[in-house]
């Protein structure tokens, strides 16, 4: 606990620097407690989801929760708890073994072909390793977000309309990487790559953005920038952010709601402020001791 206050102080110290370098954020250190979030409309209902890769070992076990519009929802838990699998079940990159998912009133698990692609255009995704096409420019990578709206030929020959290109430029500028527009993605820093990832998700005009460990490969400064951007996106555009995190601090600081996962089961689902040492030990299991000693 002692260390925690220290970290806070460190973060506060970094704040000025980060703002100078990166982006003028609203200086709301305290999370605006939007009580409205609790009665925002539910856009996705997930119920009874099981996932077993082989045999009886279940990676996900009877997962059920709702996702509300415009909230920042963090999924935390130890390694191997099933966080990544859960995220990929939401946009069906991984097929669950059992259960149902309703998104905007439709059952996503029965979708096929065009319908499935159209569902995926409504759900953006960003990744720990950014997953950009390294040899293509920032501009092209952002436009890849529109592929779901294009037919195969339009996509292959990069036939984007002027308006679409204009929107790509606007989003790139908004994320503060307009100077990198022409650069190949392998020339960018980690934080810049992740912003390209966010831009690619944003141009999809999604209802939900899934973030798989978005800051796990970034330094503290870049991590903070990315988390701030994600929160801004949810506040300003009403896009739901579902984010896997293994940093408890970041989860508490930036999310409206936290889901704790352990051994493929949901062991906590509620307000970040209500997380106490007892809850932490339930989420992280026996690792609580290590957390305190560190």
């Amino acid at each position, binding site marked *: 606990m002692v260390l925690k206050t220290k970290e806070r102080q460190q973060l506060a110290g970094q704040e000025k620097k980060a703002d100078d370098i990166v982006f003028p954020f609203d200086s709301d250190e305290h999370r605006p407690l939007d009580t409205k979030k609790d009665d925002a409309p539910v856009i996705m209902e997930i119920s009874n989801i099981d996932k077993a890769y082989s045999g009886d070992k279940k990676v996900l076990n009877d997962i059920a929760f709702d996702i509300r519009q415009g909230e920042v929802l963090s999924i935390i838990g130890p390694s191997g708890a099933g966080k990544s699998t859960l995220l990929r079940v939401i946009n069906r990159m991984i097929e669950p073994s059992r259960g149902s998912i309703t998104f905007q009133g439709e059952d996503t698990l029965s979708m096929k072909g065009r319908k499935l692609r159209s569902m995926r*255009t409504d759900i953006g995704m960003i990744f720990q390793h950014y997953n950009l096409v*390294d040899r293509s420019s920032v501009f092209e990578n952002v436009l890849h*977000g529109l*592929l779901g*709206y294009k037919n195969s030929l339009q996509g292959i020959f990069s036939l984007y309309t002027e308006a679409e290109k204009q929107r790509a430029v606007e989003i790139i500028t908004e994320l503060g990487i307009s100077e990198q527009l022409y650069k190949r993605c392998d020339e960018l820093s980690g934080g810049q790559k992740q912003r390209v990832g966010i831009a690619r998700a944003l141009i999809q005009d999604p209802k939900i953005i899934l973030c798989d460990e978005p800051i796990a490969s970034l330094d503290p400064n870049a991590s903070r920038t990315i988390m701030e951007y994600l929160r801004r996106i949810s506040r300003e555009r009403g896009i739901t952010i579902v984010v896997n995190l293994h940093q408890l601090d970041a989860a508490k600081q930036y999310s409206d709601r936290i889901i704790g996962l352990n051994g493929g089961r949901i062991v906590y689902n509620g307000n970040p402020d209500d997380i106490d040492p007892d809850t932490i030990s339930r989420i992280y299991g026996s690792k609580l001791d290590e957390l305190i000693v560190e």
Partner: protein
Amino acid sequence: MDKMNIQHAGDVNIIRKKHMKLFFAGLVIIALVFGAGAVTNYNHIEGVMSIPAAFQWLFANMLFSGSTLSNLPNVLRLLWETILISIVSTTTAAVFAGIFAIMGSKLTAVNPVLMYAAKLTASVSRNIPVVAWALILVISFGTNAATGFLALFFATFGFLVRAFIETIDEASKDTVEALRATGATYPQVIAKAVIPEAMPQMFSWMLFMIETNIRSATLVGLLTGTGIGYLFDLYYKQLNYEMVSLITLAIVIAVLIIEWMSNLIRREIL
């Protein structure tokens, strides 16, 4: 806190064990060398001793004179033909290998049946050596350039499918996931993720195979009666060693030039 048991450094025998392993490995290799010699009646010491004499013979018989050089245009013509056949067979094989690799990679496979069919085809054509291909094909196609082309084609195709599959798996895994998540169609994923990410490495493999095939083409030509290999065989059987050395030298220089060129290209694209 518990009192920890601190080990004595003297008890940690990792380094000693490694040295023992190295020593025994050395013994085994020496035993194998002499054992193999004893079985095949080959005397290593005599073998090494005969090297100077062999070189003397080489210099005495294979140094070519001015009159041999007048045959150079003919040598170069056939060498050029051989190089072209290697390039054509490799590039053709690369196109087909690209298609089969996309079908055969787990990441981009259309369906499992096609995937295994593609892998099996590639495995069969890879595991028949290029010499065997040449000998098999010469029976059905006769001694002409097409036979050489096909022999190189099949062997190259098999190797490239395997190399391409590994390249695709390695280079484009993450990007394929990202583009599928945006709702991209299969052809879009191939065109926008797999090809840009895997192409440079695939190209590099193709250049490597062109180099290898110019060497193999000499041997294949010897068997199929075409190209520089045929010329080599012809003069060799006439005991015209001056011409043989001229041809060998020409091949070596040609391979060096091709290697140098493909390194230049590689540096540009990677």
